């Protein structure tokens, strides 16, 4: 994988094998012959590999920093609060992996075994995989163009040994509608994705990007579970006064759901405790069992199980 030239145009692109960056690449003749443009055989391999996974959900948002990783980790923890269930959490944000810190397993490394990469277990029934576990240090930057990111996502889907079977696999994604998203939707195209959970914040500038993500799901035929609105209101811990920090000028997440004719799943209020548990890698669900956010996530996990 490390042999991919930095300027590789992508093996599936129209210019594959034909641009100057391809000079000297050992795969140039394969690319220029067009053979690389056939459906990737890995798609079938992924389908076999994930055939024992009961439920597969993607957490998506066109916008960054709206709380995709927060929702992904809460959902995974909520699934795992049922001790009978085996849960996997896959982080495909290659350039900005946040899951290791939120799950409190930063600095862990992935072990290679005969059956593939062993994910990191944070509970007996909850395992995590992220590029964060493959880096030398937390400050290492993954300065990769698309094709290399694509290669790693393929490896994540085909080579991670999730154990005997998973009841749920939650996939956390980076913002945007580009390489990572195309890769995951392509590789999972024969694996029956149960649906995408779309995360947004209330402002129009976020909704604008999130609409693009909904358009992406429709174009790539990923079913949509619904919309979660994060950072809805802030309740002052001192005087209980409610403030809209990110005021909605139009209908917020609920308005978006109505407009796009998809279900509105609910709201997560701004809670400094939630931000703090994410920074410190603490399990919010068990630490604040009565919080409205916990009740909402447990309820959502039950519906999606």
């Amino acid at each position: 994988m490390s042999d991919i030239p930095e300027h590789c145009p992508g093996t599936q692109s129209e210019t594959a094998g034909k641009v100057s960056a391809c000079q000297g690449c050992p795969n140039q003749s394969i690319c220029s012959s067009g053979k690389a443009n056939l459906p990737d055989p890995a798609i079938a391999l992924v389908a076999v590999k994930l055939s024992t996974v009961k439920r597969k959900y993607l957490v998506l948002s066109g916008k960054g920093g709206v709380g995709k990783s927060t929702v992904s980790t809460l959902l995974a923890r909520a699934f795992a609060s049922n001790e009978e269930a085996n849960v996997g959490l896959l982080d495909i944000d290659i350039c900005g992996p946040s899951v290791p810190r939120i799950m409190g397993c930063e600095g862990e490394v992935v072990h290679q075994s005969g059956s593939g990469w062993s994910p990191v277990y944070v509970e007996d029934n909850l395992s995590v995989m992220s590029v964060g576990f493959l880096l030398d240090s937390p400050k290492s930057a993954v300065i990769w163009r698309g094709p290399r990111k694509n290669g790693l996502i393929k490896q994540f889907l085909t080579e991670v040994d999730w154990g005997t079977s998973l009841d749920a696999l939650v996939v956390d994604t980076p913002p945007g509608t580009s390489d990572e998203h195309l890769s995951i939707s392509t590789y999972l195209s024969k694996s029956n994705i149960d649906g995408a959970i779309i995360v947004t914040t209330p402002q129009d500038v976020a909704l604008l990007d999130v609409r693009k993500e909904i358009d992406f799901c429709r174009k790539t035929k990923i079913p949509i579970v619904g919309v979660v609105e994060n950072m809805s209101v802030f309740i002052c811990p001192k005087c209980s006064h409610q403030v809209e920090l990110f005021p909605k000028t139009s209908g917020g997440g609920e308005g978006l759901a109505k407009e796009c004719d998809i279900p509105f799943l609910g709201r997560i209020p701004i809670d400094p405790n939630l931000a703090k548990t994410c920074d410190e890698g603490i399990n919010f669900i068990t630490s604040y069992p009565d919080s409205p956010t916990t009740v909402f996530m447990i309820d959502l996990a039950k519906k999606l199980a």
Partner: protein
Amino acid sequence: MVADNLLSEVKNIVLVLSGKGGVGKSTVAVQLALSLVADGKKVGILDIDICGPSIPQMFGIDSEVMQSDKGWKPVYTDDSKTLALMSIAFLLRSRNDAVVWRGPKKNSMIKQFVSTVDWGSLDYLIVDTPPGTSDEHMSVIESLAGFDNKSAVLVTTPQLISVGDVRREATFCEKTGIRVLGIVENMSGFVCPNCKDCTDIFAAGGGQLLATETGLDLITKIPIDPNLTKSGENGTNFVKAFQDSPAAQSVFRMRDYVQNKMS
């Protein structure tokens, strides 16, 4: 470089970078631009976030790009032509269309932006970027390789989770040889309008921690201000309308710092 031609009358380029999404890169880019305009400068903003462009929305502008004999004409925010914008959103048919492009297409779009936009004479060109350290970032830095007077500002929130990603962005700048002016901490604390109690909603101290670790300056801390968020929704000129607010004061500190360092 192809870029030299149309950028020959641009004096300074400031890249607004952050490894993390949603920390306020576009907000910082816009406020930096508006505060420079308030100081009598001619400014351009180039939005290279291809999949999630926010700049046009923040100015409430939905316009189309025109061709001139020299290249693409940027979109001006008003008749004074002191603030010019370019974004992929000006090239899309509908605001809801997703740009589902892999890297190589994004790269050629960015190269086109750098080489064919006719900015005219500018004191500052501010480049707003998407989160991450990938195609867009490498492409813009390659395209600007022939332009000497360029630097970056890193944006973070106080959370450790954001600091982690921005640290990676600092490594990126180091590896690609981009000078970093310093760190801007956004969303630093919120003062309740009812009881005036300050809550550190997204924790505290992240910017300082990052500054200490990287040896960079913490330029300013911009507090959470619902008026600032609203300005980004309806196109209000925040630094003009709320110039006495702590958030605007903090933006002015950033402007002065950037001008000092770049001159």
